[in-house]
């Protein structure tokens, strides 16, 4: 027994690591093999392909005027869509948690529609409803507002896709909030506005931000609905995921990879930010 232990100690680090992996329970082994095959291998393929580009070339492609324009459209539009949903998503969560009204359960369940509806269907119907002959678009057209096939249309698709993230993040936290604190504030003479701004909103704020960040992250990567409602005109409403797609269609693998890596890095940064926000919003929990 002691001799084998000593042998293990003498083994190089790599072999010990390998042995640990072999000794893992089979559930862990299957998990890691599947993850390696499905996730690590494709990630490695993309990163290695990107690393074959000389840094100067990588930088040139990543910051070409067209690429910069797509980042601008993608990120600014996603951010505005997510912020708008931060406002209305919180309102919807508030209404669903605090008030009773007819069809509440149906409305609550329907909030998840964008999760369940395939994105191409979302794009198709949004493009129709907001086109200048559609139900909503025809009302906006006389005002000179064109939605479908413009950047505004991209924003509408992003709003659609990211709304449930805010509602579903804020709703459970609002549910857990103790109404006694609000009642205490009222009984101490605070108005409803004061109660909202000084008692309810401050602890809720990190949660709203988490929802906005989740929605933003989803909107940045969105392709199906945005590609259909957008006219995909460079420098106007062409988003980064569509640019990747176009580069691939032109067999420009380097171009596609570089922009793909940029998007990937931003997604990872957003993921870290979301984890940080979640930790922040739970800071008062035990």
């Amino acid at each position, binding site marked *: 027994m002691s001799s084998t232990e000593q042998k293990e100690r003498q083994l190089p680090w790599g072999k010990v690591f390998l042995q640990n992996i072999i000794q*893992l*329970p089979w*559930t*862990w082994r*299957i*998990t*890691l093999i*599947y*993850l390696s095959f*499905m*996730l690590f*291998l*494709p990630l490695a*393929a*993309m990163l290695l*392909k990107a690393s074959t580009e000389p840094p100067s070339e990588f930088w040139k492609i990543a910051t070409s005027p067209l690429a910069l324009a797509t980042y601008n459209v993608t990120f600014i539009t996603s951010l505005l869509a997510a912020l708008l949903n931060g406002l209305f998503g919180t*309102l*919807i969560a508030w*209404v669903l948690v*605090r*008030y009773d009204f007819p069809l509440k359960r149906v*409305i609550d*369940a*329907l909030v998840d*529609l964008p*999760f*369940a509806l*395939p*994105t*191409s*269907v979302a794009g198709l*119907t949004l*493009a*129709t*409803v907001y086109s200048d002959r559609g*139900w*909503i678009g025809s009302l906006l057209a006389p005002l000179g507002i064109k939605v479908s096939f413009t950047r505004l249309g991209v924003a*509408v698709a992003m709003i*659609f896709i990211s*709304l449930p993230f805010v509602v579903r993040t804020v709703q459970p936290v609002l549910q857990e909030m103790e109404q006694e604190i609000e*009642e205490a504030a*009222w*009984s101490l003479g605070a108005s409803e506005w004061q109660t909202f701004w000084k008692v309810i909103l401050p602890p809720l704020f990190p949660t709203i931000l988490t929802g906005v960040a989740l929605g933003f992250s989803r909107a*940045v*990567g*969105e*392709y*199906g609905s945005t590609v259909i409602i957008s006219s995909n005109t460079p420098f106007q409403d062409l988003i980064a*995921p*569509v640019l*990747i*797609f176009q580069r691939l269609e032109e067999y420009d*693998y380097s171009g596609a990879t570089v922009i*793909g890596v940029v*998007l*990937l890095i931003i*997604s*990872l940064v957003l*993921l870290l930010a979301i*984890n940080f926000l979640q930790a922040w919003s739970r800071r008062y929990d035990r």
Partner: protein
Amino acid sequence: MTDKFKSNHRKQKSWIPSVLIFVAIAYLALVQYLPALNVVIQAFSKGVTPFFANLVQPEFLHAVWLTLILALITVPINTVFGLCAAWAITRHKIPGRAIVLSIIDLPFSISPVVAGLMIVLLYGRQGWFGPWLQDHNIQIVFALPGMVLATAFVSMPFVVREVIPVLEEFGQEQDEAAKTLGANDWQIFWRVTLPSIRWGLLYGVVLTNARAMGEFGAVSVVSGNISNTTQSLPLFVEEAYKQYQTESAFSAAVLLGLLAVVTLVLKEILARKTDTKEAGRH
């Protein structure tokens, strides 16, 4: 505080809830309800006959078939993986499991187009395995295997995410009780664990299926979107729309919308099942 005081306080500003409810529903109507209603109205705008005529087109039927195949392959794979991963993470706590947990969530953060791109870079003609695959006459990209890989990638995290909380709540005591009574691992899994996590598991499977049948971006990149060959139903919708066959696009959209409705209903039922169970336990 008395109830009287409370109700007085609320009565003074009783218009506020109504206004807030109205604004919330108006926003939802603009963003979700009108577009959803539009799908049905457009599909039946020329009556029921053209709708059904669209549904028997060979391209459409092939797209439905392909979508079903994709779901039939990827949902079981991801279910087994999800169970394994959830079991490993909750039952065999090894160092670094928190990192594995966030890694499993990655497909939700990565843009579907980037997911598709990665598969092309790995299995495509110029990819790592490209030459080898070509020598052996195996086609992955622009064919069904690539679409399966893309679909499996984007729908990977659902089951893990839904099963981990129920497994954690269910606890290990019953497993151990079964073990001391002489049950082997398979018996424990089938007779003790699975029955108690079934609603959570089913919830994850429903979400996986919805994503697998509805995925557009990743599949679009790897499929080449060849009608009658690699065109799944969501791709059919886009293609028909681009070809100005709007009615045909909306007919297919109705079918996918139906999938969404079924998904939402099942979700609601399953969520209630898991909730009542939790309520019963505490």
